[in-house]
């Protein structure tokens, strides 16, 4: 695998999603190619940094119950035929 091909699989490698065959090939390449290794480390650093700054926005207080109540109400309304149309285009 050359440098250009490595770029196509490097993200699977960095996230531990490369299969065994790819893993062996990528590791072998990075061991002998300092440029790709340096680039891979730089990408990994950036990804780690983005992840470290990712904060979870908690669902506002009371929103869970509010949403559940409304969903059950709407679902019941639809079931009894008084509400919105069907949902064939849901996905």
């Amino acid at each position, binding site marked *: 695998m050359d440098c250009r091909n490595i770029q196509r699989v490097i*993200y699977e490698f960095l996230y531990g999603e490369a299969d065994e065959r790819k893993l062996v090939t990528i590791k072998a390449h990075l061991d002998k190619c300092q440029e790709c290794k340096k680039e891979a480390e730089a990408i990994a650093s950036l990804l780690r940094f983005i992840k*470290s700054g990712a904060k979870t926005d908690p669902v506002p207080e009371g929103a869970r119950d509010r*949403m559940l109540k409304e*969903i059950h109400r*709407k679902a019941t309304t639809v079931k009894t035929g008084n509400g919105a149309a*069907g949902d064939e285009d849901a996905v």
Partner: protein
Amino acid sequence: MGSGAAEGGHMSTTVETTRIPDEVLIGELAAGDVRCFDTIFDRYHQQIYNFIKKQVSDHESVEDLVQEVFLRVYKSAKNFDVTKKFSSWVYKIALNEVKRHWKRTGSRQTFSLNAPLGDEGGESERQDLLEDQRITPDVQTENELFSQNLKLLIDRLPEKQKTVVILKIYNDLTFEEIAEICDCPLSTVLSRMRYAVSKLRRWLGIDEGGDDNGL
């Protein structure tokens, strides 16, 4: 994910099914056991809330959109393909809901770059910042600034690339799952990720190659 245990209300009707797979729960819901819905909701509403909040600019709509996503889950339970993963299905519904919202409002999550990256560091310093794992008060301040700028830049990514970045980095999904959610081949997802990171590096001034196709 899915806390709310102390919030009462519907919690009392939730089935204690923490070890039951999602796919089984959705099957039970499709068969008429509505108590399973609350369990599904508790497992996923927090992460879907986060996903949607990062995708839309009018944050007051987020709760309505989350509600709409789960209403669709509720109503479409019988349409769930049991050979697929439930988590991918619910994210797919969320992504479609976000797209519908963009279409309705004519907007997506965008911020103006009022706080551009400017010159508060220089390339080598930024590179050092990324690689330095030690956090001192000063570094932390700059780290936070850098992190804020990075978020603004992520918001500027093309829609499809941004979605992949969010699902991968913030929601911790696998590339396979993202491919299923986005309805595209794995290779396309990997390309979007590659282009997105390449753009971010270039915008941050840390891409030595300056080439979208570069590693």
